[in-house]
């Protein structure tokens, strides 16, 4: 699925071929090889586990490590991940001047922009933030050196190849799904202020403005390079969003001033103390009746030991050091420790909004969350998981 916004680049036939190959390789690994690896586990480990030692994801991981299927799956998955970035960086570097110029033109001097960009050059990143390149993505979200908005372009184009078409037009399906979840699940809520924390390039921030056009929508991130790109990207699509460079532990919003605090695939990239600080901040800034919603990977407690192992693969091998630690948490407890009433906790497993009729989407979110092997697992049948709480 090609990107459609104003920062998209014209790629050569070779670059497009290589991107399609990287997507196909990832699709093969995550669908075909993953199915073979699960069958190997069930046939050769689970069926023979007479003393029921495979109690959790950690035990399954330990048992799988020497299985040739696991080794092939994992080695190819890493190779595919590296290929995604390698291929995309080729395209970005050969179009670097064009991307920077487009960005400058779209950002302009701010006077005729729909939204705004507020960077804080004094913001200091915590140590964890630059310890590793998350997702094996060279330069991480900020870039190793000053390369302008190119880190945003790497993430945008790389994520598009990485997701092999499973994330919607301009990668916005998570945002579309979550915004429509709030619209349909909380019809009485008429949000005026919506904040997306950890927004990177704003791909999942923009749908909130489309679903709630009367609201002021802001995207928050620590990576200035991604925020600049996000602002230019939003302007090119004609969607009014304000982007602010802030730390999720210290939001600039006043107490009781926000209707929706949202994040997507963000909490699992934070160490536990930072998760707690962010959730406490969310509780502080929300108005009574406001909603906190996080699109995330499902908790390990809701999954089978094999599915826990499968999703935690990223924590061990995809430079996601906090991923498993987050997924081992009780999400309701995390919310209640931040000040939310345990009775206000909600969670939902939902289909992708832009891939199904709204009636089907509505029917699923009106039922209890049902977890299965496709919950949060990037595959052709992925289902999103969201949890959160309403401030009383």
């Amino acid at each position, binding site marked *: 699925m090609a990107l459609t916004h104003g920062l998209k680049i014209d790629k050569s*036939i*070779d670059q497009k*071929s*290589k991107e*399609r*190959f*990287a997507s196909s*390789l990832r699709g093969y690994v995550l669908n075909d090889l993953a199915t073979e690896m699960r069958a190997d586990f069930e046939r050769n480990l689970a069926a023979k586990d007479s003393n029921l030692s495979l109690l959790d994801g950690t035990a399954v991981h330990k048992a799988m490590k020497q299985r040739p299927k*696991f*080794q*092939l799956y*994992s*080695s*190819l998955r*890493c*190779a*595919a*991940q*590296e*290929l995604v*970035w*390698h*291929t995309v*960086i080729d395209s*970005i*570097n050969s179009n*670097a*001047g064009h991307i*920077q110029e487009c960005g400058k033109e779209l950002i302009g001097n701010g006077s005729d922009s729909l939204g705004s960009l507020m960077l804080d050059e004094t913001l200091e990143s915590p140590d964890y933030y*630059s*310890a*590793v*390149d998350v997702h*094996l*993505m*060279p*330069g*991480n979200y900020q*870039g*190793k*050196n*000053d*390369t*302008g908005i*190119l*880190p945003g372009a*790497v993430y945008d184009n790389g994520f598009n190849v990485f997701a092999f078409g499973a994330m919607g037009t301009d990668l916005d399906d998570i945002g579309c799904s979550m915004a429509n979840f709030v619209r349909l699940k909380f019809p009485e809520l008429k949000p005026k202020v919506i904040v997306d924390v950890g927004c990177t390039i704003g791909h999942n921030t923009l749908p909130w403005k489309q679903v709630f056009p009367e609201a002021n929508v802001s995207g928050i991130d620590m990576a200035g390079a991604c925020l600049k790109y996000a602002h230019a990207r939003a302007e090119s699509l004609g969607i009014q969003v304000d982007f602010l460079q802030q730390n999720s532990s210290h939001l600039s919003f006043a107490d009781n001033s926000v209707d929706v605090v949202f994040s997507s695939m963000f909490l699992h990239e934070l160490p536990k103390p930072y998760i707690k600080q962010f959730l406490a901040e969310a509780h502080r800034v929300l108005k009574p009746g406001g909603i906190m919603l996080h699109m995330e990977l499902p908790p390990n407690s809701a999954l089978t030991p094999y599915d826990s192992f499968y999703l935690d693969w990223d924590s*061990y*091998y995809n*430079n996601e050091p906090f991923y498993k630690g987050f997924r081992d948490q009780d999400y309701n407890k995390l919310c209640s420790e931040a000040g939310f009433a345990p009775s206000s906790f909600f969670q939902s497993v939902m289909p992708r909004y832009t891939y199904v009729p709204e009636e089907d989407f509505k029917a699923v979110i009106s039922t209890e969350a049902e977890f299965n092997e496709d919950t949060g697992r990037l595959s052709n049948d992925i289902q999103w998981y969201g949890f959160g709480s309403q401030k009383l």
Partner: protein
Amino acid sequence: MEQEVGRSVKGGRASFFNNHEVDQLLAMLMRVTSEHWALKERVLAVEALLVQQNILLPDSLDNYVAADEEQTRLDLESVNLIRSVLEASQNIDSKKRQP
């Protein structure tokens, strides 16, 4: 401001096979396969364009038979390619390890 994004990954990546060189070979093989695929798509695109523009008949490539002299040269080139690929490992001594 620099105009090129680097490629090194802070934190590196894991290896999975008992001999990590298998992981390295697999990664190289995928990189080569990606290049091979790009070349194949390009050739297919060229063929399709030539057919669309009536420069080439649809089956003319599949029905193409090289002249004897041309085929001899191609056969020799293919053997040279095989030699070149296999010779890449000739200096590797499996008993000689890094100190």
